[in-house]
Protein backbone atom coordinates (compact mmCIF):
# COMPACT_ATOMS: atom_id res chain seq x y z
CA UNK A 1 0.00 0.00 0.00
CA UNK A 2 1.27 3.42 -0.86
CA UNK A 3 1.54 5.85 2.05
CA UNK A 4 -0.74 8.82 1.76
CA UNK A 5 0.39 12.42 1.62
CA UNK A 6 3.96 11.66 0.64
CA UNK A 7 5.36 12.08 -2.86
CA UNK A 8 6.02 8.96 -4.90
CA UNK A 9 9.58 7.60 -4.89
CA UNK A 10 10.73 8.84 -8.28
CA UNK A 11 8.79 12.10 -8.28
CA UNK A 12 10.17 13.06 -4.88
CA UNK A 13 13.67 12.73 -6.29
CA UNK A 14 12.70 14.80 -9.31
CA UNK A 15 11.58 17.65 -7.11
CA UNK A 16 14.75 17.55 -5.05
CA UNK A 17 16.79 17.89 -8.24
CA UNK A 18 14.67 20.44 -10.06
CA UNK A 19 13.93 22.96 -7.31
CA UNK A 20 17.56 24.11 -6.77
CA UNK A 21 18.23 23.93 -10.52
CA UNK A 22 15.25 26.11 -11.39
CA UNK A 23 16.08 28.47 -8.52
CA UNK A 24 19.62 29.02 -9.83
CA UNK A 25 18.36 29.35 -13.40
CA UNK A 26 15.95 32.08 -12.32
CA UNK A 27 18.18 33.92 -9.84
CA UNK A 28 21.63 33.31 -11.28
CA UNK A 29 21.61 32.58 -15.02
CA UNK A 30 18.58 34.49 -16.34
CA UNK A 31 19.67 37.73 -14.63
CA UNK A 32 22.72 37.78 -16.91
CA UNK A 33 20.39 37.77 -19.93
CA UNK A 34 18.50 40.71 -18.40
CA UNK A 35 21.81 42.55 -17.91
CA UNK A 36 22.74 41.83 -21.54
CA UNK A 37 19.37 43.15 -22.69
CA UNK A 38 19.59 46.34 -20.68
CA UNK A 39 23.18 46.95 -21.79
CA UNK A 40 21.66 47.35 -25.26
CA UNK A 41 19.07 49.91 -24.22
CA UNK A 42 19.30 53.64 -23.95
CA UNK A 43 19.49 55.56 -20.69
CA UNK A 44 16.48 57.75 -19.92
CA UNK A 45 15.18 59.82 -17.08
CA UNK A 46 12.45 57.46 -15.97
CA UNK A 47 11.86 54.63 -13.53
CA UNK A 48 13.50 52.26 -14.35
CA UNK A 49 15.99 54.66 -15.99
CA UNK A 50 16.24 53.13 -19.46
CA UNK A 51 14.16 52.84 -22.62
CA UNK A 52 12.58 49.48 -23.47
CA UNK A 53 14.43 47.34 -26.01
CA UNK A 54 11.28 45.68 -27.32
CA UNK A 55 8.21 47.81 -27.86
CA UNK A 56 4.81 46.66 -29.10
CA UNK A 57 3.99 49.11 -31.85
CA UNK A 58 0.63 47.60 -32.71
CA UNK A 59 -0.95 44.30 -31.89
CA UNK A 60 1.42 41.52 -32.92
CA UNK A 61 4.12 43.80 -34.25
CA UNK A 62 7.12 44.40 -32.08
CA UNK A 63 9.79 46.96 -32.64
CA UNK A 64 13.21 45.99 -31.41
CA UNK A 65 15.58 48.84 -30.74
CA UNK A 66 19.13 47.71 -30.08
CA UNK A 67 21.61 50.29 -29.03
CA UNK A 68 25.29 49.38 -29.18
CA UNK A 69 26.14 52.95 -28.19
CA UNK A 70 26.98 51.92 -24.62
CA UNK A 71 29.64 49.48 -25.81
CA UNK A 72 31.04 52.01 -28.29
CA UNK A 73 31.18 54.57 -25.51
CA UNK A 74 33.08 52.17 -23.22
CA UNK A 75 35.49 51.17 -25.98
CA UNK A 76 36.18 54.74 -27.04
CA UNK A 77 36.59 56.26 -23.58
CA UNK A 78 40.17 55.48 -22.43
CA UNK A 79 39.02 55.66 -18.80
CA UNK A 80 37.19 52.33 -19.05
CA UNK A 81 39.99 50.53 -20.88
CA UNK A 82 42.41 51.83 -18.23
CA UNK A 83 40.27 50.61 -15.37
CA UNK A 84 39.79 47.14 -16.88
CA UNK A 85 43.55 46.89 -17.31
CA UNK A 86 44.16 48.21 -13.78
CA UNK A 87 41.71 45.69 -12.30
CA UNK A 88 43.44 42.78 -14.01
CA UNK A 89 46.87 44.07 -12.98
CA UNK A 90 45.86 44.67 -9.35
CA UNK A 91 44.12 41.29 -9.17
CA UNK A 92 47.22 39.56 -10.60
CA UNK A 93 49.67 41.23 -8.20
CA UNK A 94 47.35 40.56 -5.24
CA UNK A 95 46.99 36.91 -6.24
CA UNK A 96 50.77 36.59 -6.32
CA UNK A 97 51.08 38.21 -2.88
CA UNK A 98 48.39 35.87 -1.53
CA UNK A 99 50.20 32.86 -2.99
CA UNK A 100 53.51 33.91 -1.41
CA UNK A 101 51.86 34.31 2.00
CA UNK A 102 49.60 31.28 1.68
CA UNK A 103 52.01 28.63 0.40
CA UNK A 104 54.23 28.42 3.50
CA UNK A 105 51.12 28.35 5.69
CA UNK A 106 49.58 25.50 3.70
CA UNK A 107 52.94 23.68 3.70
CA UNK A 108 53.33 23.89 7.48
CA UNK A 109 49.71 22.83 8.06
CA UNK A 110 50.01 19.84 5.72
CA UNK A 111 53.27 18.68 7.38
CA UNK A 112 51.94 19.07 10.95
CA UNK A 113 50.95 16.05 13.06
CA UNK A 114 47.20 15.57 13.57
CA UNK A 115 45.95 17.56 16.56
CA UNK A 116 47.95 20.61 15.51
CA UNK A 117 46.91 20.24 11.87
CA UNK A 118 43.18 20.61 12.62
CA UNK A 119 43.83 23.52 14.96
CA UNK A 120 45.87 25.42 12.34
CA UNK A 121 43.27 24.73 9.66
CA UNK A 122 40.53 26.14 11.88
CA UNK A 123 42.72 29.17 12.61
CA UNK A 124 42.93 29.83 8.86
CA UNK A 125 39.17 29.51 8.37
CA UNK A 126 38.01 31.34 11.51
CA UNK A 127 38.66 34.95 10.35
CA UNK A 128 36.49 34.17 7.32
CA UNK A 129 33.56 33.96 9.73
CA UNK A 130 34.02 37.44 11.14
CA UNK A 131 32.90 40.46 9.20
CA UNK A 132 34.92 41.01 6.04
CA UNK A 133 33.97 44.69 6.02
CA UNK A 134 35.24 45.21 9.57
CA UNK A 135 38.46 43.33 8.89
CA UNK A 136 39.18 45.57 5.90
CA UNK A 137 38.36 48.55 8.08
CA UNK A 138 40.99 47.39 10.61
CA UNK A 139 43.68 48.01 8.00
CA UNK A 140 42.83 51.72 7.80
CA UNK A 141 44.04 52.22 11.37
CA UNK A 142 47.21 50.23 10.62
CA UNK A 143 48.18 51.80 7.30
CA UNK A 144 47.22 55.45 7.86
CA UNK A 145 50.04 57.99 7.60
CA UNK A 146 49.67 58.61 11.33
CA UNK A 147 48.64 55.01 11.92
CA UNK A 148 50.08 52.08 13.84
CA UNK A 149 52.54 50.70 11.30
CA UNK A 150 54.17 54.07 10.75
CA UNK A 151 54.41 54.87 14.44
CA UNK A 152 56.03 51.48 15.13
CA UNK A 153 58.50 51.86 12.26
CA UNK A 154 59.33 55.45 13.28
CA UNK A 155 59.76 54.39 16.89
CA UNK A 156 62.13 51.56 16.00
CA UNK A 157 64.02 53.93 13.72
CA UNK A 158 63.62 51.95 10.51
CA UNK A 159 62.21 54.98 8.73
CA UNK A 160 62.63 58.69 9.38
CA UNK A 161 59.47 59.83 7.60
CA UNK A 162 56.06 58.13 7.63
CA UNK A 163 55.32 55.92 4.63
CA UNK A 164 52.28 56.71 2.54
CA UNK A 165 50.54 53.33 2.11
CA UNK A 166 46.84 53.97 2.64
CA UNK A 167 45.10 55.13 -0.53
CA UNK A 168 47.74 53.53 -2.74
CA UNK A 169 47.73 50.27 -4.70
CA UNK A 170 49.92 48.63 -2.05
CA UNK A 171 47.09 48.96 0.48
CA UNK A 172 44.72 47.34 -2.04
CA UNK A 173 47.13 44.39 -2.59
CA UNK A 174 47.38 43.88 1.18
CA UNK A 175 43.62 44.15 1.64
CA UNK A 176 42.88 41.60 -1.09
CA UNK A 177 45.59 39.20 0.15
CA UNK A 178 44.24 39.51 3.67
CA UNK A 179 40.59 38.84 2.87
CA UNK A 180 41.10 36.09 0.29
CA UNK A 181 43.89 34.19 2.11
CA UNK A 182 41.67 31.24 3.19
CA UNK A 183 40.59 30.70 -0.44
CA UNK A 184 44.27 30.29 -1.33
CA UNK A 185 45.39 28.20 1.66
CA UNK A 186 42.63 25.56 1.52
CA UNK A 187 43.23 24.26 -2.05
CA UNK A 188 47.00 24.45 -1.48
CA UNK A 189 46.60 22.44 1.71
CA UNK A 190 44.47 19.87 -0.14
CA UNK A 191 47.16 19.50 -2.81
CA UNK A 192 50.03 19.35 -0.29
CA UNK A 193 48.36 16.77 1.94
CA UNK A 194 47.84 14.48 -1.05
CA UNK A 195 51.53 14.71 -1.94
CA UNK A 196 53.31 11.35 -1.81
CA UNK A 197 56.02 11.81 0.84
CA UNK A 198 58.05 8.87 -0.42
CA UNK A 199 58.93 10.95 -3.49
CA UNK A 200 60.60 13.51 -1.23
CA UNK A 201 62.49 10.77 0.61
CA UNK A 202 63.61 9.33 -2.71
CA UNK A 203 64.85 12.69 -3.91
CA UNK A 204 66.70 13.24 -0.61
CA UNK A 205 68.29 9.78 -0.87
CA UNK A 206 69.51 10.67 -4.33
CA UNK A 207 71.31 13.65 -2.82
CA UNK A 208 68.93 16.54 -3.49
CA UNK A 209 68.97 19.36 -0.94
CA UNK A 210 65.58 20.33 0.57
CA UNK A 211 65.44 23.37 -1.71
CA UNK A 212 66.10 21.31 -4.83
CA UNK A 213 63.50 18.74 -3.72
CA UNK A 214 61.02 21.53 -3.15
CA UNK A 215 61.45 23.07 -6.57
CA UNK A 216 61.67 19.81 -8.53
CA UNK A 217 59.14 17.64 -6.64
CA UNK A 218 56.80 19.54 -4.30
CA UNK A 219 56.16 22.62 -6.41
CA UNK A 220 55.41 20.85 -9.72
CA UNK A 221 53.17 18.27 -8.02
CA UNK A 222 51.12 20.94 -6.24
CA UNK A 223 50.61 23.05 -9.38
CA UNK A 224 46.89 22.13 -9.66
CA UNK A 225 46.39 23.43 -6.10
CA UNK A 226 48.33 26.59 -6.94
CA UNK A 227 46.16 27.22 -9.99
CA UNK A 228 42.89 26.48 -8.15
CA UNK A 229 43.78 28.77 -5.22
CA UNK A 230 45.01 31.52 -7.54
CA UNK A 231 41.81 31.45 -9.59
CA UNK A 232 39.66 31.54 -6.45
CA UNK A 233 41.46 34.77 -5.50
CA UNK A 234 41.92 36.28 -8.96
CA UNK A 235 38.37 36.05 -10.30
CA UNK A 236 36.50 37.78 -7.45
CA UNK A 237 39.38 40.24 -6.96
CA UNK A 238 38.89 41.63 -10.50
CA UNK A 239 35.45 42.96 -9.59
CA UNK A 240 36.28 43.90 -5.99
CA UNK A 241 34.58 47.08 -4.79
CA UNK A 242 34.87 47.37 -0.99
CA UNK A 243 38.66 47.02 -0.76
CA UNK A 244 39.58 49.67 -3.37
CA UNK A 245 36.82 51.92 -2.01
CA UNK A 246 38.15 51.78 1.57
CA UNK A 247 41.90 51.25 1.14
CA UNK A 248 42.61 52.55 -2.36
CA UNK A 249 42.99 56.15 -3.44
CA UNK A 250 40.77 58.19 -5.70
CA UNK A 251 43.06 57.28 -8.57
CA UNK A 252 42.75 53.54 -7.91
CA UNK A 253 40.54 52.72 -10.87
CA UNK A 254 39.11 49.28 -10.40
CA UNK A 255 36.24 48.22 -12.62
CA UNK A 256 34.03 47.24 -9.68
CA UNK A 257 34.29 50.82 -8.42
CA UNK A 258 33.53 52.19 -11.90
CA UNK A 259 30.42 50.00 -12.16
CA UNK A 260 29.30 51.06 -8.68
CA UNK A 261 29.67 54.75 -9.57
CA UNK A 262 27.87 54.39 -12.91
CA UNK A 263 25.02 52.74 -11.09
CA UNK A 264 24.73 54.68 -7.85
CA UNK A 265 26.21 58.09 -8.65
CA UNK A 266 25.35 58.53 -12.34
CA UNK A 267 22.25 56.30 -12.28
CA UNK A 268 23.19 55.12 -15.76
CA UNK A 269 21.92 51.54 -15.66
CA UNK A 270 22.62 50.70 -19.34
CA UNK A 271 26.28 51.73 -19.09
CA UNK A 272 26.65 49.87 -15.79
CA UNK A 273 25.18 46.79 -17.49
CA UNK A 274 27.56 47.07 -20.43
CA UNK A 275 30.48 47.40 -17.99
CA UNK A 276 29.25 44.22 -16.24
CA UNK A 277 28.89 42.28 -19.50
CA UNK A 278 32.45 43.12 -20.57
CA UNK A 279 33.71 42.16 -17.09
CA UNK A 280 31.82 38.87 -17.39
CA UNK A 281 33.55 38.17 -20.71
CA UNK A 282 36.90 38.77 -18.98
CA UNK A 283 36.28 36.22 -16.23
CA UNK A 284 34.52 33.50 -18.24
CA UNK A 285 37.85 31.99 -19.34
CA UNK A 286 39.38 31.73 -15.83
CA UNK A 287 36.03 30.50 -14.50
CA UNK A 288 35.88 27.59 -16.94
CA UNK A 289 39.49 26.71 -16.19
CA UNK A 290 38.64 26.61 -12.47
CA UNK A 291 35.63 24.40 -13.17
CA UNK A 292 37.82 21.93 -15.07
CA UNK A 293 40.44 21.90 -12.29
CA UNK A 294 37.82 21.19 -9.65
CA UNK A 295 36.18 18.45 -11.72
CA UNK A 296 39.58 16.80 -12.14
CA UNK A 297 40.29 17.06 -8.42
CA UNK A 298 36.97 15.38 -7.60
CA UNK A 299 37.78 12.49 -9.92
CA UNK A 300 41.20 12.12 -8.33
CA UNK A 301 39.84 12.18 -4.79
Amino acid at each position, binding site marked *: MKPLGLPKFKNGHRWV*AWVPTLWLLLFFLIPFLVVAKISLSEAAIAMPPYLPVIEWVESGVAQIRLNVGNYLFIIEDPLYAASYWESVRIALVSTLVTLLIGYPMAHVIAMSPEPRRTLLLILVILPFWTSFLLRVYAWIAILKTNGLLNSVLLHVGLISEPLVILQTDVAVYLGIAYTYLPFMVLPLYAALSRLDRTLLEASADLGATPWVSFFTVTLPLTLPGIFAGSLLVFVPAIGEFVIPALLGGNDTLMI*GKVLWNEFFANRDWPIASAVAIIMLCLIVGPLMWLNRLQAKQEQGA
Partner: protein
Amino acid sequence: MRLGRYVMPVSAALGFGFLYIPILILVIYSFNASKLVTVWGGFSTQWYVELFRDPQILDAAKLSFKIATASATLALVLGVAAAMTLVRFRWFKGRTLLTGMVAAPLVMPEVITGLSLLLLFVALDNLLGWPAGRGVTTIILAHATFGMAFVAVIVQARLRDMDRTLEEAAMDLGARPLTVFFTITIPSIAPALVAAWLLAFTLSLDDLVIASFVSGPGSSTLPMVVFSKVRLGISPDINALATLMIMIVALGGAIGFWQIRRSMRGRSSR
Protein backbone atom coordinates in the same frame (compact mmCIF):
# COMPACT_ATOMS: atom_id res chain seq x y z
CA MET B 1 69.13 27.81 5.11
CA ARG B 2 67.15 24.78 6.15
CA LEU B 3 63.86 24.78 4.28
CA GLY B 4 61.78 22.62 6.58
CA ARG B 5 63.39 23.88 9.78
CA TYR B 6 63.33 27.63 9.38
CA VAL B 7 62.05 29.22 6.18
CA MET B 8 58.64 27.54 5.97
CA PRO B 9 57.70 27.74 9.70
CA VAL B 10 58.89 31.34 10.03
CA SER B 11 57.01 32.50 6.95
CA ALA B 12 53.94 30.55 8.04
CA ALA B 13 54.11 32.21 11.47
CA LEU B 14 54.29 35.58 9.73
CA GLY B 15 51.24 34.54 7.70
CA PHE B 16 49.23 33.72 10.81
CA GLY B 17 50.36 37.01 12.33
CA PHE B 18 49.16 38.78 9.19
CA LEU B 19 45.74 37.13 9.69
CA TYR B 20 45.33 37.84 13.38
CA ILE B 21 47.17 41.07 14.22
CA PRO B 22 44.55 43.36 12.60
CA ILE B 23 41.79 41.54 14.51
CA LEU B 24 43.74 41.88 17.75
CA ILE B 25 44.22 45.59 17.12
CA LEU B 26 40.48 46.08 16.57
CA VAL B 27 39.75 44.40 19.91
CA ILE B 28 42.39 46.35 21.84
CA TYR B 29 41.39 49.72 20.43
CA SER B 30 37.70 49.16 21.10
CA PHE B 31 38.66 49.67 24.76
CA ASN B 32 40.77 52.78 24.10
CA ALA B 33 39.49 55.94 25.75
CA SER B 34 41.23 58.06 23.12
CA LYS B 35 39.73 58.48 19.69
CA LEU B 36 43.19 58.33 18.08
CA VAL B 37 44.64 54.97 17.11
CA THR B 38 48.20 55.85 17.99
CA VAL B 39 47.39 57.18 21.45
CA TRP B 40 46.42 54.92 24.32
CA GLY B 41 44.09 57.01 26.45
CA GLY B 42 43.42 54.36 29.07
CA PHE B 43 40.87 51.57 29.38
CA SER B 44 37.28 52.55 28.68
CA THR B 45 34.02 50.98 27.62
CA GLN B 46 32.52 54.25 26.39
CA TRP B 47 32.40 53.13 22.73
CA TYR B 48 30.24 50.16 23.69
CA VAL B 49 27.86 52.51 25.50
CA GLU B 50 27.81 54.77 22.45
CA LEU B 51 27.19 51.80 20.17
CA PHE B 52 24.14 50.69 22.13
CA ARG B 53 22.76 54.22 22.14
CA ASP B 54 22.91 54.54 18.36
CA PRO B 55 19.39 53.78 17.10
CA GLN B 56 20.53 53.67 13.47
CA ILE B 57 23.00 50.85 14.19
CA LEU B 58 20.56 48.97 16.43
CA ASP B 59 17.76 49.08 13.83
CA ALA B 60 20.11 48.01 11.07
CA ALA B 61 21.43 45.17 13.23
CA LYS B 62 17.91 43.92 13.92
CA LEU B 63 17.05 44.03 10.21
CA SER B 64 20.28 42.25 9.27
CA PHE B 65 19.64 39.46 11.80
CA LYS B 66 16.14 38.98 10.43
CA ILE B 67 17.38 38.82 6.84
CA ALA B 68 20.30 36.53 7.74
CA THR B 69 18.05 34.07 9.61
CA ALA B 70 15.52 33.84 6.78
CA SER B 71 18.05 33.68 3.96
CA ALA B 72 20.30 31.12 5.71
CA THR B 73 17.33 28.84 6.31
CA LEU B 74 16.22 29.11 2.69
CA ALA B 75 19.82 28.61 1.54
CA LEU B 76 20.13 25.48 3.71
CA VAL B 77 17.06 23.81 2.17
CA LEU B 78 18.06 24.70 -1.39
CA GLY B 79 21.74 23.90 -0.84
CA VAL B 80 21.05 20.48 0.67
CA ALA B 81 18.76 19.66 -2.27
CA ALA B 82 21.50 20.76 -4.69
CA ALA B 83 24.14 18.73 -2.84
CA MET B 84 21.96 15.59 -2.76
CA THR B 85 21.34 15.97 -6.48
CA LEU B 86 25.02 16.39 -7.30
CA VAL B 87 26.27 13.53 -5.12
CA ARG B 88 23.47 10.97 -5.36
CA PHE B 89 21.31 11.47 -8.46
CA ARG B 90 23.39 10.22 -11.36
CA TRP B 91 20.22 10.09 -13.48
CA PHE B 92 19.63 13.85 -13.36
CA LYS B 93 20.07 15.34 -16.83
CA GLY B 94 20.80 18.86 -15.62
CA ARG B 95 23.80 17.77 -13.50
CA THR B 96 26.49 19.54 -15.53
CA LEU B 97 24.43 22.72 -15.59
CA LEU B 98 23.77 22.53 -11.85
CA THR B 99 27.47 21.86 -11.09
CA GLY B 100 28.43 25.01 -12.95
CA MET B 101 25.67 27.11 -11.42
CA VAL B 102 26.62 26.01 -7.90
CA ALA B 103 30.33 26.75 -8.39
CA ALA B 104 30.06 30.09 -10.21
CA PRO B 105 28.40 32.21 -7.48
CA LEU B 106 31.34 31.43 -5.16
CA VAL B 107 33.75 33.44 -7.29
CA MET B 108 31.41 35.78 -9.18
CA PRO B 109 32.34 39.41 -8.42
CA GLU B 110 29.67 40.78 -6.13
CA VAL B 111 29.01 43.89 -8.23
CA ILE B 112 27.92 41.65 -11.12
CA THR B 113 25.68 39.46 -8.94
CA GLY B 114 24.14 42.53 -7.30
CA LEU B 115 23.47 44.42 -10.52
CA SER B 116 22.08 41.37 -12.34
CA LEU B 117 19.72 40.48 -9.49
CA LEU B 118 18.48 44.04 -9.23
CA LEU B 119 17.75 44.17 -12.97
CA LEU B 120 15.96 40.81 -12.70
CA PHE B 121 13.79 42.07 -9.83
CA VAL B 122 12.91 45.23 -11.77
CA ALA B 123 12.05 43.17 -14.86
CA LEU B 124 9.94 40.71 -12.83
CA ASP B 125 8.20 43.60 -11.14
CA ASN B 126 7.25 45.10 -14.51
CA LEU B 127 6.17 41.75 -15.89
CA LEU B 128 4.34 40.14 -12.97
CA GLY B 129 4.00 42.84 -10.34
CA TRP B 130 6.23 40.78 -8.06
CA PRO B 131 8.31 41.22 -5.82
CA ALA B 132 6.57 44.63 -5.67
CA GLY B 133 9.38 47.03 -4.97
CA ARG B 134 12.68 46.33 -3.31
CA GLY B 135 13.53 45.74 0.31
CA VAL B 136 13.73 42.88 2.76
CA THR B 137 12.24 40.27 0.39
CA THR B 138 14.63 41.00 -2.44
CA ILE B 139 17.66 40.95 -0.10
CA ILE B 140 16.54 37.59 1.33
CA LEU B 141 16.16 36.10 -2.15
CA ALA B 142 19.57 37.41 -3.22
CA HIS B 143 21.34 36.17 -0.09
CA ALA B 144 19.65 32.76 -0.27
CA THR B 145 20.99 32.40 -3.81
CA PHE B 146 24.65 32.89 -3.01
CA GLY B 147 24.29 31.25 0.41
CA MET B 148 22.99 28.05 -1.17
CA ALA B 149 26.16 27.74 -3.24
CA PHE B 150 28.30 27.72 -0.07
CA VAL B 151 25.88 25.31 1.65
CA ALA B 152 26.00 22.97 -1.35
CA VAL B 153 29.83 22.89 -1.30
CA ILE B 154 30.02 22.04 2.43
CA VAL B 155 27.20 19.48 2.38
CA GLN B 156 28.48 17.85 -0.82
CA ALA B 157 31.83 17.12 0.82
CA ARG B 158 30.11 15.57 3.85
CA LEU B 159 27.73 13.47 1.72
CA ARG B 160 30.67 12.08 -0.26
CA ASP B 161 32.48 10.95 2.91
CA MET B 162 29.36 9.52 4.48
CA ASP B 163 29.10 5.84 5.30
CA ARG B 164 26.07 4.61 3.36
CA THR B 165 25.65 1.19 4.96
CA LEU B 166 23.10 2.45 7.51
CA GLU B 167 20.98 3.96 4.75
CA GLU B 168 21.15 0.75 2.75
CA ALA B 169 20.18 -1.30 5.79
CA ALA B 170 17.16 0.92 6.41
CA MET B 171 16.14 0.63 2.75
CA ASP B 172 16.49 -3.15 2.90
CA LEU B 173 14.20 -3.17 5.93
CA GLY B 174 11.61 -1.37 3.85
CA ALA B 175 11.96 2.25 4.95
CA ARG B 176 10.75 4.80 2.42
CA PRO B 177 13.40 7.15 0.92
CA LEU B 178 11.95 10.16 2.71
CA THR B 179 12.03 8.32 6.04
CA VAL B 180 15.63 7.25 5.41
CA PHE B 181 16.53 10.83 4.56
CA PHE B 182 15.03 12.32 7.71
CA THR B 183 15.97 9.60 10.21
CA ILE B 184 19.42 8.60 8.95
CA THR B 185 20.90 10.98 6.36
CA ILE B 186 20.03 14.24 8.13
CA PRO B 187 21.29 13.17 11.61
CA SER B 188 24.56 11.83 10.21
CA ILE B 189 25.35 15.05 8.31
CA ALA B 190 24.02 17.29 11.11
CA PRO B 191 27.38 18.95 11.98
CA ALA B 192 27.87 19.91 8.33
CA LEU B 193 24.32 21.29 8.24
CA VAL B 194 24.97 23.45 11.30
CA ALA B 195 28.24 24.71 9.84
CA ALA B 196 26.60 25.42 6.49
CA TRP B 197 23.68 27.31 8.03
CA LEU B 198 26.04 29.38 10.15
CA LEU B 199 28.22 30.21 7.16
CA ALA B 200 25.21 31.28 5.09
CA PHE B 201 24.05 33.35 8.07
CA THR B 202 27.45 35.04 8.46
CA LEU B 203 27.77 35.76 4.74
CA SER B 204 24.33 37.37 4.70
CA LEU B 205 25.08 39.38 7.83
CA ASP B 206 28.29 40.63 6.23
CA ASP B 207 27.22 41.41 2.69
CA LEU B 208 27.43 45.03 1.62
CA VAL B 209 27.58 45.04 -2.17
CA ILE B 210 24.69 42.76 -3.17
CA ALA B 211 22.41 44.20 -0.47
CA SER B 212 23.16 47.76 -1.62
CA PHE B 213 22.02 46.91 -5.14
CA VAL B 214 18.83 45.02 -4.29
CA SER B 215 17.65 46.93 -1.21
CA GLY B 216 15.12 49.70 -1.39
CA PRO B 217 14.63 52.93 0.52
CA GLY B 218 14.28 52.41 4.25
CA SER B 219 15.90 49.00 4.36
CA SER B 220 19.50 49.71 5.31
CA THR B 221 21.32 46.62 6.57
CA LEU B 222 24.11 46.72 9.16
CA PRO B 223 26.99 46.60 6.62
CA MET B 224 25.40 49.49 4.71
CA VAL B 225 25.31 51.63 7.85
CA VAL B 226 28.84 50.57 8.85
CA PHE B 227 30.18 51.33 5.37
CA SER B 228 28.75 54.83 5.30
CA LYS B 229 30.27 55.49 8.76
CA VAL B 230 33.65 53.97 7.95
CA ARG B 231 33.96 55.88 4.71
CA LEU B 232 34.09 59.09 6.72
CA GLY B 233 37.06 57.79 8.70
CA ILE B 234 37.78 55.77 11.82
CA SER B 235 34.95 55.59 14.30
CA PRO B 236 35.71 53.84 17.61
CA ASP B 237 32.15 52.57 18.10
CA ILE B 238 32.68 50.46 14.96
CA ASN B 239 35.68 48.90 16.77
CA ALA B 240 33.30 48.00 19.58
CA LEU B 241 30.86 46.46 17.10
CA ALA B 242 33.67 44.47 15.48
CA THR B 243 34.84 43.21 18.88
CA LEU B 244 31.36 41.99 19.76
CA MET B 245 31.16 40.11 16.45
CA ILE B 246 34.61 38.60 16.96
CA MET B 247 33.62 37.45 20.47
CA ILE B 248 30.52 35.72 19.10
CA VAL B 249 32.51 33.98 16.37
CA ALA B 250 35.25 32.94 18.81
CA LEU B 251 32.62 31.55 21.17
CA GLY B 252 30.98 29.68 18.29
CA GLY B 253 34.38 28.33 17.25
CA ALA B 254 35.11 27.15 20.79
CA ILE B 255 31.74 25.39 21.04
CA GLY B 256 32.37 23.79 17.65
CA PHE B 257 35.79 22.51 18.80
CA TRP B 258 34.32 21.10 21.95
CA GLN B 259 31.64 19.28 19.97
CA ILE B 260 34.15 17.87 17.46
CA ARG B 261 36.48 16.67 20.23
CA ARG B 262 33.60 15.11 22.14
CA SER B 263 32.32 13.27 19.07
CA MET B 264 35.88 12.11 18.23
CA ARG B 265 36.37 10.76 21.76
CA GLY B 266 32.96 9.08 21.66
CA ARG B 267 33.88 7.39 18.40
CA SER B 268 37.27 6.14 19.60
CA SER B 269 35.92 4.74 22.89
CA ARG B 270 33.20 2.74 21.14
